[in-house]
């Protein structure tokens, strides 16, 4: 009865991500057991939530650069990994099928950075309330 009927990230996974994130636990390891398309969906979900928390926390003062500046730029990441693929190829959506481990490690880094950003947005609001 309870078979997975969807190709996208299940809502329970999203809830689990939020649960661990809000409990201050690491979340990037949650993608280890995921299929490639779920990993991509997780990255997308995390980015959407990061923007949502950022906008609710900072309003118009939120800039995506506050988060992305902590992410290793694609060209640097490719150099670090001695990657011979073209620059535009270093995107999770493209590379995860051919260089799974490398792409997953990059996505993990991004997920951890986004999780830290979300926690900071929340902490700032907790301090304001206090």
């Amino acid at each position: 009865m309870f078979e997975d009927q969807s190709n996208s990230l299940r809502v329970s996974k999203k809830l689990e991500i939020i649960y661990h994130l809000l409990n201050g636990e690491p979340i990037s390891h949650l993608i280890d057991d995921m299929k490639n398309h779920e990993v991509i969906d997780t990255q997308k979900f995390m980015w959407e939530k990061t923007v949502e928390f950022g906008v609710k926390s900072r309003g118009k003062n939120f800039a995506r650069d506050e988060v992305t500046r902590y992410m290793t730029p694609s060209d640097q990441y490719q150099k670090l990994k001695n990657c011979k693929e073209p620059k535009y190829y270093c995107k999770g959506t493209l590379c995860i099928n051919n260089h799974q481990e490398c792409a997953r490690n990059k996505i993990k880094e991004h997920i951890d950075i986004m999780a830290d950003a979300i926690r900071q947005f929340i902490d700032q609001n907790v301090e304001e309330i206090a």
Partner: protein
Amino acid sequence: MRVGEFTVISPRNAMKDIFMESICGHITHIDDRISFSSLDINKNLAIHFYGIKIDFKDNNISWDLLTPKILGHIFLFNWEDEGTLKTIEKMLDHLAGISTTPIMVIANVNGNNDLPMPEKFVEPNGFALEPTVRFTYCQLSDSKCTKRAVSGIVNILLERLP
């Protein structure tokens, strides 16, 4: 009188019963896992809540037959007990997968200490996991908070009206 029907799904009887009682002020136990309560909104409209206790291997409820009549599903779990979250996960995925009926997932918290996140982030209709699946938190015995959560799921329904 028109009636709107909601399910209240939880891994423990006490959780759904406290939630339903805090909203309706009364509760009727149908059997050891199902309870019922109703709230009259006005003389023309009432809301019925069907409380259902589930476990990990639950597969004997005819959800396919039930869901077309249900306006929304309310899932409960204890924020401080990850096991209760795990118990609702499969049912949550199943109901989110078979229809677009709104779902509100409510974490039961103890008092105002260590809330999952400031209220600002769950207002007005819950934190969106998906357009029709929202997350919020409540102390289940706090009727003001539980009624706000129910208002949230009603608002999701209203948002969908053309």
